[in-house]
């Protein structure tokens, strides 16, 4: 039974604390910022960005939108462009897998990704002396000159698989597989589950009227959904939202 793991992120619940960013980095052995790194050269497989209603002073509103790999299901932009099969859409899990050890660092996939969810290792990863002891043994460290991105905490999937195997079960228990960002969210804004399973709460959430996907009309079928009840947020986040009048005074 093939699964389709995905998320529904409730933008109304995101406080922009950034716990998901840090939890993701520790889980996946993402190195601390290089001295010269900026928001354009850093590595944040999970990244929280700001949305504003464009007004100033007391009228201003802000919201936050977490962006990780959208795990595009159809016409996955990065998969088709990679010249040497370093990226693939896994049939069993629906995860778009990035293999840094296969990557030659041509960055074509980064130009292909409309969500800017891919990151290049501009520097060799470095930790203060001794801190390499705090690396997660489930994830290999990337080297300079390759592209990386969210693999949906694949190490945790491995643990779940091994656990299932030990019990001689074919399918994993979804409770054993929770990505770091989902686990870290203090407000439970991120709902994770198997979109291919109607009984999974994530299924209903993904199909609710106030949920949407980024750049949906490009047709890449992302498996990361967003939802909000507030029109101005919807209009700011979703390019294809039909702009309701009250959106102006959000």
């Amino acid at each position, binding site marked *: 039974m093939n699964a389709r793991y995905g998320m529904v992120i409730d933008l109304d619940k995101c406080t922009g604390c950034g716990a998901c960013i840090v939890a993701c980095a520790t889980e996946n052995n993402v190195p601390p910022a290089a001295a010269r790194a900026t928001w354009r050269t850093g590595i944040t497989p999970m990244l929280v960005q700001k949305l504003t209603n464009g007004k100033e002073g007391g009228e201003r509103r802000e919201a936050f939108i977490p962006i990780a790999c959208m795990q595009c299901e159809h016409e996955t932009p990065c998969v088709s462009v990679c010249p040497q099969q*370093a990226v*693939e859409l*896994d*049939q*069993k*899990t629906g*995860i778009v*897998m990035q*293999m840094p*050890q*296969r990557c030659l660092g041509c960055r074509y996939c980064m130009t292909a990704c409309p969500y800017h969810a891919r990151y290049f290792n501009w520097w060799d990863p470095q930790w203060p002396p001794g801190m390499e002891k705090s690396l997660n043994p*489930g*994830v*290999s*460290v990337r080297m300079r000159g390759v592209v990386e991105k969210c*693999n949906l905490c*694949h*190490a945790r*999937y*491995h*643990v779940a*698989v*091994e*656990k*299932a*195997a*030990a019990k*001689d079960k*074919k399918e994993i228990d979804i409770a054993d597989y929770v990505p770091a960002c989902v686990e870290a969210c203090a407000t439970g804004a991120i709902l994770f589950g198997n979109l291919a399973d109607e009984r999974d709460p994530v299924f209903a959430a993904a199909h609710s009227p106030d949920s949407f996907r980024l750049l949906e009309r490009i047709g890449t079928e992302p498996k990361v959904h967003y939802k909000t009840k507030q029109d101005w947020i919807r209009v700011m986040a979703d390019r294809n939202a039909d702009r309701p009048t009250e959106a102006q005074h959000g």
Partner: protein
Amino acid sequence: MRRPSVVFAVGFAVAMFVGWVAFPRALYISQEQPLDFFHKTHAEKSGLNGCDSCHMAGSDGQYSGIPKTEVCAGCHTEKLGSSQDEALLVDNYVKQAKQTPWLVYSRQPANVWFSHAVHTRRAGLNCTECHGNYGESDSLRVYEQNRITGYSRDIWGHSISRLRRAPHDGMKMTDCENCHRRHHIQVGCLGCHQ
């Protein structure tokens, strides 16, 4: 025969020798294990049957790997023989409660995720299908390490050309792939990589 062709042939022959004989020797460093170990003897004397009496996977599937010194200490609290290795084990490791720095022949690189639980419990493979009948060995062979990659020689296999290999010679990605293909197992990159 004309001289030029002879000269050409000589050059060709030299290259052949260098490539097939000298190169493989130069490529690997040989390292001795810290201690010798007799799988056979342990199997017979201590009545341990089956690899998993020492190399087992826990309830969560975690593989224990090579037993820790504490396990050895179970019997080897005092020297059980007069051999030099025995003395080394007891004095340097058991007594000082230090782990033996074994060189693992089948150690895969950091970017590989291999679950023994999945292959033995789920797929029901025998250890010997990948490791050969190691339990019968009555000493540890020399550990050879690739100078460039740092991998154990067992990964590539002992035949440099990888043609006409003995079974279980080689633990490269292609070897995994072939076995998976034989058993119609479909796995993506991150099915075995991490």
